[in-house]
């Protein structure tokens, strides 16, 4: 049973309060609270006599939003009804609200109509009746969602406590209910107009007070939701004429004596015209001097109404179904999804179901080329593969699965696997393979798998400066995924720093493309993979080294590639932009020396240079020695512009050294194939399954 509290803010409300409280009590809510802000007409005594709880607050602390928040905080019902002191519920009021909230789980608020009391002026009575009839012409409860009217009135409204706790009333002078209605819909809640939850209510103010009240209300409306009432004299005249005609019909239909009808029509014209003028003035009140505002305001208040930074803040509606890092949050909070129990022999099954999770990519991504070269060969060996896009980058959101798949085939390798962009479609796999730090937490969230493997192409924390991304990238090595690292250096780093188990695979080379081309080898050309967009490429150091080399050898031809943008350099160079693999192979076959630096793991480029017979210079003391040896096909130099220039010069000057490095490079590259890379990755995947078998089966049966 839903519990229900009723909150009534009161100030000098004795005229109707006894009647209101009696009607509310008859509805049998769980609690009734009156919040009185300095009544002097005996309202407090009336409330106490009715047996309801009363909170008294100083008049200066009253605020339409603030005081209602206080009322909600001071009660405990799952539903909180708000009434004004002059709104008398009709029988069945609370039950009608209960029905409204039962219509859907995400009903945040409901409101009912205001019926005119006996003796209410025809203008008000007609407007109230017609206004509420618009929401429900049939008289049935109506659910209102995004795009529907934001109208909500605290004269007679009911809120789900969960919704109120999420949104709360803004501390504004007026129209806190309208602001709530706007924010409620923006936050994904819905509201219900319930015709059966009616109250008797009317604003029977004297003419002057009525106008000034409208000034206050529209000033509040402007401050709450920015509404500016349109005002044009011809339009206003048409509006007033239309309203007077409607009032005339109403008076006739509702039996007002003919003698009094002309009087009502004059009052009607003054009422609608005056109200339109005061509404327009109220919504532009901030442009009026304080003294004028006070004169026009029933509350005699002035000021711009801005109550600080928070109050003037714009609430941004929820745009995403969930934030991009929701998976990380889930894994951090709940831990990884459980793996399937290990089964004996699962590592040796001929065909495995392998799901590869990949981060966002663009054309020419070296890391993705590695992943898809290997995946296409795993498919050729009979494994059943699927590709899952998983990244915090919102770029994937704009691309459909079929387009991503087409790009993979066109740009990287002819895969047969389908591509999925929604992990909610996950149906399980023998092994999940994460292929970038962005994919590890999503992989940890996937269940119905026997093992998780991490294909580590590079030490990715170093791709980021001090940031959440860097911290999360480091975190990926600590979740016990079995790693398959792309170099011995990387394997040792993962083991030593994070205690991760790791195998090694080596990048392959596309020998059909990267081979010595039939073009004369020049003796005066240095080619440099200069991509400033990738910080780990140490481009400033490379440019300093080439500047030094140019100072020593002004006649040397220098060519830069790897970026579409021209780079400002202190030496002349040929800008080659981004080249296709075939173009690169011709460049490597023609040049004398290559320069390719990496502050983390070495990349494919040096191997491809070697495959074309081009000796190159790489950084010493990082990752190259582990693969090429200290005196292998690569000329190594520390990260020092002058020493790098020395290394380049050695290869330019020393023909015997050049020949030796070139020969060794071709021999080394000949051993690097994508088939051998796939052998190593497949062995790593099976190793991961075997580790699970060993830890579970052997661990349980010593």
């Amino acid at each position, binding site marked *: 049973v839903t519990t229900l509290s009723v909150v009534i803010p009161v100030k000098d409300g004795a005229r109707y309060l006894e009647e209101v409280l009696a009607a509310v009590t008859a509805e049998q809510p769980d609690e009734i609270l009156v919040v009185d802000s300095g009544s002097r007409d005996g309202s407090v005594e009336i409330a106490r006599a009715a047996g309801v709880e009363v909170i008294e607050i100083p008049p200066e602390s009253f605020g339409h939003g603030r005081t209602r928040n206080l009322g909600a905080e001071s009660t405990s019902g799952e539903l909180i009804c708000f009434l004004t002191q002059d709104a008398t519920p009709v029988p069945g009021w609370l039950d009608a609200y209960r029905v409204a909230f039962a219509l859907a789980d995400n009903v945040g608020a409901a409101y009912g109509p205001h019926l005119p009391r006996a003796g209410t002026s025809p203008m008000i009575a007609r407007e109230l009746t017609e206004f509420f009839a618009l929401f429900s012409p049939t008289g049935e409860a109506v659910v209102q969602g995004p795009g529907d009217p934001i109208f909500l009135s605290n004269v007679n409204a009911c809120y789900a406590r969960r919704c109120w706790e999420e949104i709360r009333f803004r501390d504004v002078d007026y129209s806190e209910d309208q602001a709530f209605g706007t924010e409620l819909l923006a936050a994904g809640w819905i509201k219900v107009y319930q015709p059966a939850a009616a109250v008797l209510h009317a604003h029977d103010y004297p003419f002057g007070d009525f106008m000034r009240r409208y000034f206050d209300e529209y000033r509040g409306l402007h401050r709450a939701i920015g509404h500016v009432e349109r005002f044009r004299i011809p339009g206003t005249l048409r509006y007033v004429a239309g309203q007077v005609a409607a009032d005339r019909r109403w008076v006739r239909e509702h039996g007002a004596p003919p003698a009094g009808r002309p009087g009502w029509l004059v009052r009607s014209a003054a009422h609608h015209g005056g109200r339109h003028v005061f509404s327009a003035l109220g919504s532009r009140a901030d442009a009026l001097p304080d003294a004028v505002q006070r004169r026009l305001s029933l509350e005699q208040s002035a000021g711009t109404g801005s109550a600080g930074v928070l109050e003037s803040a714009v609430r941004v509606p929820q745009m995403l179904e969930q934030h991009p890092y929701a998976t990380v949050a889930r894994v951090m909070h709940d831990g990884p999804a459980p793996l399937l129990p290990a*089964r*004996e*022999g699962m590592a040796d*099954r001929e*065909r*495995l*179901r392998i799901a590869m999770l990949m981060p966002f990519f663009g054309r020419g991504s070296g890391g993705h080329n590695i992943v898809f070269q290997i995946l296409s060969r795993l498919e050729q060996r009979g494994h*059943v*593969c*699927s590709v899952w896009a998983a990244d915090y980058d919102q770029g994937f959101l704009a691309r*459909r*699965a*079929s*387009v991503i*798949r*087409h790009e993979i085939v066109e740009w990287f390798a002819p895969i*047969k*696997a*389908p*591509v999925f962009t929604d992990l909610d479609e996950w*149906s399980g*796999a023998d092994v999940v393979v994460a292929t970038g730090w962005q994919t590890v937490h999503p992989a940890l969230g996937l269940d119905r798998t026997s093992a998780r493997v991490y294909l580590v192409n590079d030490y990715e924390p170093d791709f980021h400066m001090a940031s959440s991304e860097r911290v999360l990238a480091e975190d990926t090595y600590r979740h016990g995924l079995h790693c398959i690292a792309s170099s011995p250096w990387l394997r040792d780093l993962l083991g030593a720093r994070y205690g991760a188990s790791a195998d090694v695979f080596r990048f392959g080379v596309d020998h059909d493309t990267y081979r010595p081309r039939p073009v004369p080898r020049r003796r005066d050309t240095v080619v440099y993979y200069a991509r400033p967009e990738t910080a780990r490429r140490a481009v400033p150091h490379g440019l300093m080294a080439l500047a030094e080399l140019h100072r020593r050898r002004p006649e040397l031809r220098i060519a830069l590639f790897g970026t579409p943008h021209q780079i400002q350099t202190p030496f002349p160079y040929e800008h080659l932009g981004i080249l296709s693999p075939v173009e690169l192979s011709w460049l490597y076959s023609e040049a004398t020396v290559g320069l390719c630096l990496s502050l983390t793991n070495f990349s494919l480029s040096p191997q491809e240079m070697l495959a074309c017979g081009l000796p190159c210079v790489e950084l010493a003391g990082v990752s190259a020695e582990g693969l090429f040896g200290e005196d292998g096909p690569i000329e190594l130099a520390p990260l020092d512009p002058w020493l790098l220039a020395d290394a380049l010069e050695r290869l330019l000057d020393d023909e015997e050294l050049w020949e030796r490095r070139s020969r060794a490079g071709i021999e080394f590259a000949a051993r690097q194939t994508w088939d051998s890379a796939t052998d190593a990755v497949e062995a790593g995947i099976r190793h991961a399954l075997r580790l699970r078998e060993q830890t579970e089966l052997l661990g349980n049966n010593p």
Partner: protein
Amino acid sequence: VKTEQTDELAADSAEVERLRARVTQLEEQLVSLQAWANEVAARAQERTYWLDRLHLDLDPIMRHLPVEFALGVYQTVRGVYRRLRTP
């Protein structure tokens, strides 16, 4: 007593082997089923590539009244043409 225990162990062992074989068989079936599902999904993605690339959703387009009308006209004309062509 020992003989009875040995018989029971042998029976258990045979049951375990039988269940293992069944699990292996079911796993193979699962792999084949997954391969078939992947193939179907991949083929469908190949077919919808240009529609997805151009962000075209044919369902709402085809529901649009003028399109339905045009289709109706086309089908009528085609029907008449076929009748006339048939000797």
